């Protein structure tokens, strides 16, 4: 068994009286992906924010590549390969798709030619090559999601934190996104954590699933087992399946 890429121990976040996360133990190995599901307010995004460094935990520890990163800044973590896609697509609206992609690529490559090659490679992978001259503002919602995921790949990320990557997508786009995530894990060896509400998409991803409920882990396992779990049906899936 290889060492985990990411490990959280007893991770918790308290906002004054409100317990957003508590006692989360989580492990993720390189080149693997994992889904986090749960009802609204279960603390999914809070958990992701603590891993990316946007929120600092009130208890517990985050270890990444065998380093304690619990108190490290967003910039430090990003430079070591932790990359986050925000819940609403966060891109550079007035810049073209190409220019959007140049910004993360320039962070890791100094030479102009290397930046160029990297941008081209990633744009082809995220199916946006044809749209490279279009302003990001004019992309469809789904394309904007791909652009943001692509930008994370361009910045040499090793751990992708994807907050609702399939939100607002058509059925075809969802399938393409699931394929994309599989490619990123399979071909590029990236690790991904995906937060999702859409159970069709979670099924397509076909990964291990953790269910969060009221800030804690309710259960964890493969999708079918989790979906058939009585408690999960009670708190979350009852109305979806």
């Amino acid at each position, binding site marked *: 068994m290889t060492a985990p890429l990411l490990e959280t121990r007893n991770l918790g976040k308290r906002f004054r009286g409100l317990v957003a996360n508590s006692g989360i133990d989580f492990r993720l190995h390189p080149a693997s992906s994992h889904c986090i599901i749960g009802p609204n307010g279960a603390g999914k995004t809070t958990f992701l924010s603590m891993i*990316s460094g946007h929120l600092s935990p009130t208890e517990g520890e985050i270890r990444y590549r065998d380093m304690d990163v619990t108190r490290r800044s*967003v*910039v430090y973590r*990003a*430079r070591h390969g932790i*990359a*986050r896609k*925000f819940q609403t697509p*966060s*891109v*550079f*609206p*007035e*810049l*073209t798709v190409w*220019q959007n992609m*140049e*910004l*993360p690529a*320039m*962070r890791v490559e100094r030479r102009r030619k290397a930046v160029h090659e990297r941008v081209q490679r990633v744009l082809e992978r995220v199916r946006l090559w044809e749209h490279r*001259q*279009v*302003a990001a503002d004019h992309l469809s919602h789904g394309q904007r999601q791909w652009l943001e995921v692509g*930008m994370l790949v361009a*910045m040499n990320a090793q751990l992708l934190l994807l907050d609702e990557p399939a939100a607002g997508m058509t059925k075809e786009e969802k399938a393409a996104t699931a394929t994309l995530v599989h490619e990123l894990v399979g071909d590029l060896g990236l690790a991904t954590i995906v937060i999702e509400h859409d159970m069709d998409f979670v099924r397509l991803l076909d990964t291990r699933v953790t269910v969060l409920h009221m800030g804690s882990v309710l259960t964890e396992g493969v999708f079918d087992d989790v979906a058939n779990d009585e408690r999960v049906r009670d708190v979350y899936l009852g109305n979806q399946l």
Partner: protein
Amino acid sequence: MNSTVESTRARSRRRFGIDTVTETGVAALFFALLAVVPLFADDYMIYILPQYMLYGVLAMSLALLWGFTGIVSFGQAALFAIGGYVMGLCMGLTLPINPGYVGIVAGAAFSGALAGIIGYFLFSAGVRSTHFVLITLALAIITQQIAVSQSWLTGGWNGMFVARMSVSPGAQGSIPGDTVFYMFILVFSAGCYFVVRHILCGRFGKILAGIRENEDRLTAFGYRIDVYKSAAFALSGVIAGLAGSLYATTSGFVTPSLAGVLFSTQVLVWVAIGGRHSLLGAFAGAMLVASLSSYVSAIIPDYWQLIVGVLFILVIIYFKKGLAGLVESVGRWLQRRKAA
């Protein structure tokens, strides 16, 4: 169909908000026109236009921040005035080389360093743009107060006379005439423009555009945006300091009002009217509004500020991209007519 192809092509030439091919052409033409002005202009114009050109350089220092990085500063006048006072002090020294050039370098370095330090303290503490505006406003007020109170150094309310610098590098150069000085300032302004343009088209400029568009995204890529913002403010300080040092020796005089909030506001108006997304627009806007103000104020001294104010409001409402945006749309319209 045709229009999509066309707009794609037009966009591919745009580099992070700057249409490089067209703007270089227009800028070259503009500076060439300024170069032939002394052939037919009267003495007063040859005397006064260099001052307006330096206002233009000052306006570029704000456009770099406001239009390209998305940070508004009310402190540009302070940085300009500091450059001017430093030049005044340098011109009073006896040096083995031309004190004028020492003054230019020292003025730029002083304003640049001050802006860089202030910027770093604020941006690394996470101060956002709205608060930055207020702090730069305070910078203008404080600088003016110091210029008034430290009269042993600055001459207080009376201001400070600054001799005109010689153009030659040696210590004992002769004082140039107005036409020579006009060309000197023109070459300097054009040089400033092309250097800043070059910087903005490169890696640094792209990152500034990223900051303007979405700084949180950029931070999450691992960029230290506080460093880039401070660098942008420092660069803006260098340019404002350069312009201020030359302004002092061009006009022969610096006063505390040069550092004040009123003058800072004027710089904002110039840049808004000229077009904050275009360096050339800002430069031309400053020259135009400054010339217009002095022309109109001679005719109707009581109302000229009102006219400038109305112009400002019209631009804000109808031409958000200022004169530069207007010129651009006219250019596109002509192109489309030619194509049709």
